[in-house]
């Protein structure tokens, strides 16, 4: 279907079903129950899932395919956000021109940065991209204040021109009148499910983004990028200039990041320089590695995983912990709370750092590899069991 083979089609359909039914899947616990804090089905968080999913999928096109580790990808996200907010300020609150401009501007930005950075590889490339991102961050904070509004962050004011704004145009971000924040709440028994217009727009865009990423992975172009990753020198010796290919990958992934930034601004018309800081770049690296770099589904899993646990872990506090460990004797209960306390609430970054180290050390392929290992283990055990059940061993060959 759509030029994909059977496996990829299944994957795409699975992603589509997951995103479309996310409001149900992420809200498995009834309202008001003790487990309700594990629900993640509210619009704000679901939007973040898919937006960061797009960001990570784009990053994976560069890092997963070519092996070039960019430490400055958040710069494109920031540029995308700024250009989107400028569209809101100049034209109207319609998100379509904003998203288109975000992709175009960040793409151009990526051409410039990529053209320079890709002259070097390995750690030099990482440092160059990091330097560019930090430069953009510093400039956005200081000199470019007329464009970026400095520390306050760029936002839409009442006296902005907004040339396309009619007298009865909505003042919130919208897609031809459909407001992004409009939410339909479905109540079934104790459960309540939120269907948010903004989320579904982002989800649709993410599906397109994933589809394109699958096509890139399976195309001759993608194959060329994989060859660059496995042995660039050999590619050069065959007389092939790899730079146009890597540059194309860099620009595509920059445009994905810009798209994510534009969507972020469309959900909430704000843009701040901190979106470009190198910790933000580090975050997308984390997502991609955690999910599994170089795999199709990994980055989305990683983005969802990190954003979900960031949200949940930050919410848990000592009172909740005391409830959990209430079945233990008092002394032990306090001890357990004491042990777990540093890892929750504000300590979420500690958990994230540890988790990240564990993944890099033990599971370089990320969650996807973990899943593959588990399924392989189960399959092996099943065949072992089957052989035992047959009551005979294989003859030695």
């Amino acid at each position, binding site marked *: 279907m759509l030029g994909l083979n059977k496996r990829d089609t299944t994957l795409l359909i699975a992603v589509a079903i997951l995103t479309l039914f996310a409001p149900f899947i992420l809200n498995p616990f009834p309202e008001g129950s003790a487990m309700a804090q594990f629900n993640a089905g509210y619009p704000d968080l679901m939007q973040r899932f898919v937006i960061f999913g797009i960001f990570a999928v784009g990053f994976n096109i560069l890092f997963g395919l070519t092996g070039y580790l960019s430490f400055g990808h958040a710069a494109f996200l920031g540029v995308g956000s700024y250009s989107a907010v400028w569209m809101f300020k100049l034209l109207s609150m319609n998100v379509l021109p904003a998203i288109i401009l975000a992709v175009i501007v960040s793409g151009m930005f990526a051409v410039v940065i990529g053209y320079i950075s890709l002259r070097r590889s390995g750690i030099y490339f990482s440092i*160059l991209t990091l*330097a560019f991102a930090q430069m953009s961050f510093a400039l956005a904070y200081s000199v470019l204040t007329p464009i970026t509004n400095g520390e306050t962050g760029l936002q839409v004011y009442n006296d902005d021109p907004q040339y396309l704004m009619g007298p009865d145009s909505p003042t919130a971000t919208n897609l031809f009148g459909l407001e992004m924040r409009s939410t339909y709440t479905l109540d079934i028994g104790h459960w309540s499910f939120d269907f948010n217009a903004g989320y579904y727009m982002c989800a649709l865009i993410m599906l397109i983004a994933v589809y394109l990423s699958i096509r890139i992975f399976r195309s001759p172009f993608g194959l060329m990028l994989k060859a660059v990753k496995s042995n660039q020198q050999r590619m050069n010796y065959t007389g092939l200039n790899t730079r146009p290919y890597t540059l194309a990958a860099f620009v595509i992934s920059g445009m994905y990041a810009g798209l994510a930034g534009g969507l972020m601004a469309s959900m909430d018309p704000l843009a701040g320089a901190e979106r470009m800081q190198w910790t933000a770049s580090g975050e997308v690296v984390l997502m991609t590695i955690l999910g599994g770099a170089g795999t199709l589904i990994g980055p989305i899993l990683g983005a969802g995983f990190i954003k979900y646990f960031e949200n949940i872990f930050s919410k848990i506090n000592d009172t909740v912990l005391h409830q959990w460990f209430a079945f233990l004797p008092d002394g032990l209960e306090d001890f357990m709370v004491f042990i777990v306390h540093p890892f929750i609430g504000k300590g979420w970054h500690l958990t994230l*750092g540890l988790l*990240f*180290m564990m993944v890099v050390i033990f599971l370089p392929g990320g969650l996807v590899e973990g899943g593959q290992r588990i399924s392989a283990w189960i399959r092996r055990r099943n065949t072992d069991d089957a052989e035992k059940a047959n009551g005979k061993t294989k003859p030695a060959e």
Partner: protein
Amino acid sequence: MDAIILQILNGLDKGSAYALIALGLTLIFGTLGVVNFAHGALFMIGAFCAVTLNKILTISYITIDETRTDFLGNPLKVENTYIERWFGPEIGSAIIDWSVPLAILFSIPIMVAIGFIMERGLIKHFYRRDHADQILVTFGLAIVLQEIIKYFYGANPIPTPAPEVFRGSFDFGMLLGFDPNVIIYPYWRLVYFSFSALIIGAVFAFLQFTTFGMVVRAGMADRETVGLLGINIDRRFTIMFGIAAAVAGMAGVMYAPINSPNYHMGMDFLVLSFVVVVVGGMGSLPGAVLAGFLLGILESFASMNEVKTLLPGIDQIIIYLVAIIILLTRPRGLMGRKGVMEE
């Protein structure tokens, strides 16, 4: 002229910090071939050694002085530190006053121990993985170390004063025949610069003039051959990792009075120090030191008002800009060796 001298002086202390961290980074990279993103965290831990010692020394008990009363008319509670009780008021307060220099002694064993644990426990397993993996795992470690410090010390900067003697400023201009109060330079920054010059000199002397240093240099040049000669080069490299950690730690201890330590100071310095290493040339110790001072001074020149009016914002980006230009024109950095980090 006076403005130029002032900016050079201003650049020296930041340059010293860059040079010390970059030196440690290069030592680790040159010996173990590992890109250590957690080096800034070591710098930060060093600064927090100073904070910790200061806190330990000022642990106090409360006595009630019956002869005096506070504003409510109750007997006055007087806080006394244990140090003053044990050593007498004069020596006790002097020890507290000198807590930052004392913290150097306190930090060396801690930093060396942390360095050993890091190398044996984690880095060792990453010799043969590619640089991306090394960057990622040490990046994770840096986050963890930073969060641990944040957990114990909070997110706010903790002021850590220098000894009383060094708190004033030194009128450098008088010495060179300028008018008074033209070139004023805080004493502590002067101390910091001399201290880092001393450390850098010591590291170079250690590598250049001792047998141990000679073996390490041989190992940096050709690890395999040195191993074949029956020398346990891995153990020596581990020791070098400890030394590099101690250098970063001492740089942090001494930096505490200049900039109150907070948990993310390491990351702020790390990014810049990496740029310094790359500008100096990956794997080149003199290059790291040279580039550290050079970039520190350039940065302070760029923050002069005259320059800023000419090129607004240049002070924020000068280091990155220089790094980009250097990397594009001299790919090996200022003093990089051939064959290091070239795929």
